């Protein structure tokens, strides 16, 4: 029995690539019914890897498979005007629309928010775009590095002597997807808590998520650095070396890789305890606040005590030793490490499932646990056009009408798209 937290919510998903699909994945994974509309060529993420054996295949993209769990998929060619009637029925069916076309494209495709809100005034319509629906950069192109460079703290990420550095992968696009999901659910719940009964008449609205602004408002140093600049006129800078200043306060090599330890300043006594309280490090001069900025003391500490301790230990051993003394710390893992991580495995973070084309795979599972309405993998990502027919049937189309939509290439089914 379906008992996801968002059971009953119906989502019409026109999104592609990462940010939009991650937004609708969160909704789908926690119980919403999501219909993903793809163009005949499919979501572009189907063409991005990783692919098994690095052989491209539209049904085997690891990125697509990950981002589109729990959604049903239909292929509709919105560029064909005959799709208008179907769009109308879908808009009336839906509680929520998610799209991430460039501004103006949704209007041209006949799925703009004005038209759809006209058809269904209660619709929550979420647009995710690079720079927002308004403003001079509205039509500018974006990419992960562009968003982080403009919106995020890229200029203070990396080393002073080198170029600014982006974060790994597509983490900014994922973050934008989460913020869009927050906005979408906020709008969906509007009026649910008001004590004024007359207010409990939720109406639809348009949400404008600019990926740029999800970075400008990120708690990953940007919000605070922007405000600190207001307060002081100063700018943040890339540091001269790794870590965050003081010692030990960085990533260091250990016996089987790298290990992060932050035991500087007020936490220094814990780091000393971790090293077994060597008598020299208990001397008063190590407690002087100036000691943390003294390069000779740092060199002495690291070469005589800290690195010998760490280099004799594996990441797992160092982690036990550090945590045993309440030292903030952690291993620098790879995906292979994470795959066999005892906590991730014991707590059920991974989920295995069969996919008709990609076969049996492990998937990243629940981001968080809900004890009354748990995350559930109900279905793997849709094949291109897999649910076109059943969705058209649910929208009230008869068999001959469906055949006509397919014949005129307004809709496509799995067999047609795979030819």
């Amino acid at each position, binding site marked *: 029995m379906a008992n996801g*937290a*968002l059971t009953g919510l119906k989502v019409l998903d026109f999104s592609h690539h990462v940010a939009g699909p991650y937004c609708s994945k*969160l909704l789908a994974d926690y119980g919403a019914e999501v219909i993903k509309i793809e163009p005949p060529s499919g979501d572009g993420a189907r063409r991005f*890897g*990783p692919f098994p*054996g690095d052989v491209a295949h539209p049904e085997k993209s690891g*990125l697509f498979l990950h981002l589109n769990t729990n959604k049903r998929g239909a292929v509709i060619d919105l560029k064909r005007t005959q799709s208008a009637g179907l769009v109308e029925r879908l808009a009336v069916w839906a509680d929520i629309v998610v799209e991430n076309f460039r501004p103006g494209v949704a209007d041209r495709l006949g799925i703009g928010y004005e038209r759809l809100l006209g058809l269904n005034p209660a619709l929550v319509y979420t647009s995710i775009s690079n720079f927002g*629906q308004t403003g001079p950069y509205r039509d500018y*192109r974006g*990419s992960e*590095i*562009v*968003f982080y*460079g403009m919106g995020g703290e*890229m200029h203070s990420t990396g080393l002073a002597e080198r170029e*600014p550095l*982006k*974060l*790994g*992968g597509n983490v900014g696009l994922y973050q934008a997807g989460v*913020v869009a*999901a927050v*906005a979408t*659910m906020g*709008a969906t719940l*509007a009026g*649910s808590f*008001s004590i004024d009964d007359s207010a409990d008449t939720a*109406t639809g609205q*348009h*949400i*404008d998520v600019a990926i740029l602004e999800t970075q*400008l*408002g990120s*708690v*990953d*140093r940007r919000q*605070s650095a*922007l405000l*600190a600049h207001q*307060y002081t006129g*100063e700018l*943040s800078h890339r540091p001269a070396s*790794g870590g*965050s200043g003081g010692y030990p306060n960085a990533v260091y090599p250990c016996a089987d890789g790298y290990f992060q330890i932050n035991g500087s300043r007020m936490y220094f006594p814990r780091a000393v305890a971790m090293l077994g309280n060597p008598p020299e490090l208990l001397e008063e001069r190590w407690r002087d606040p100036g000691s943390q900025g003294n390069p000779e003391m740092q060199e002495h500490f690291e070469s005589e005590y800290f690195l010998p301790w760490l280099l004799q230990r594996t990441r797992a051993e160092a982690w036990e030793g550090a*945590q045993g003394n309440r030292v903030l710390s952690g*291993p*620098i893992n*790879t*995906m292979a490490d994470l795959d066999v991580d005892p*906590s*991730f495995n014991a*707590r059920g*973070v991974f989920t295995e499932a069969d996919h008709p084309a990609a076969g049996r795979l*492990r998937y990243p599972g629940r*981001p*968080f*646990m*809900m004890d009354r*309405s748990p995350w559930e993998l109900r279905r793997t990502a849709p094949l291109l056009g897999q649910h076109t027919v059943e969705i058209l049937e649910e929208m009230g189309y008869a068999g001959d009408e469906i055949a006509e939509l397919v014949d005129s290439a307004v809709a496509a089914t799995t067999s047609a798209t795979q030819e």
Partner: protein
Amino acid sequence: MPRLPLEGLRVLEITVVWAGPYCGSFLADLGAEVIRVESTKAFVPLTRGAAPHLTQAVIDNLPLYSGGTPGRVPGERPFNRSPMFNSHARNKRSMTVNLLDPGGREIFDRLVAISDVLVENNPTETMEKLGISYESLKAVKDNIIMLRMPAYGSTGPYRDFRAHGVHIEGVVGHTMLRGYEDTDASYNTTVLMSDAAAGAQGAFAVLAALHHRKRTGEGQLVELGQAENVFPFLGEYYMDHLMNGRAHGPTGNRHPRALQNCYPCAGDNRWVAVTVYDNQQWRALCQVIGAPDLEADAGLADAAARRSRQDEIDPRIAAWTRTQSPDAAMHALQERGIPAGAVMNQADVFADSHVRSRQFFQESFQEDCGAHLYPGPLYKMSATPLSIRRGPVMFGQDNEYVYRELLGYSAEEYEAFEAAGHVGTDYAEGVG
């Protein structure tokens, strides 16, 4: 339609550092009454700044985000002036109570009884010490929703391990991915991406639980282990490990399939980020940078070839970007449909015409800081526009409202709570 979506919802926060307070800020922006439950007897470093009573000498040595108080001076109450707190503390309320005292617990329970949600992100053992659990809350308010955000979860081998965001990113594999291609992980600087992920996804979790409550009437416990929470953000790298056994090292500023880098511009420490996905963008780029030989090179006619020969292309792009300001380079490339962005420092952001036109920053006043521009809500809503309705909340600012108005304590009781150290607007002596 209410003025704001979550009007009428009451959320309590026992949150520290970044992730928990950031979660609360999303709910507060949406109109919930978010009350920070703080204590005059406890200070968690890096929440309201590095320490409760910072001296000038300490502030001078702190990084901008924690030391950048107005004018770089501590002021009388530095804990009301820290940018690392004030940047996300808008639209909230703050009350103080000592939860370790039985009398304080009674006050807290009365507050729980009239609240909908409690959000916390403390180490598991801290909550155990406070004696606050989902069961204890549920006993007071049957349909309460509790969001817990421990680093690795309340069970499992790491349940008591201490972590900040930077450690969580190491554990989930992000640290290994970010960094220069030619340096090892020890050169990595500190980022806090997983705090952003936990705060936002935690807010989504609360909203999902509220939807469930609306449908069924029941509250619940939501547990968000911060490492597990951010793992899906790296899903494609995990899939690549499964599918191909590939181990990923630092990728620098490169893109797996496109030509992409961060290029130097005219001036000191000025940069532009550029991505060239397709052939059309490639031809346009060659024209903008004046490189007809590259455009004519048949060996560079597809993205994979350009990616593999990036080392010879990059200097050609840089030769052009060095003659441009970041803005000029961005506009010249964007006009030809090429993704490009000036790498903006804080001053650049405040001056940017697009950011200004979107009114991302909003002016707000707070007694201990004065009036300033603050980063505002992260998205626009057409029918229920969000704004900064209230400046960054000061420590204990709403004690009177919470104790007298919400909980109905008398003036005499309030005074007694003040004397007992529950009610206050400063930390007790010796705290921190």
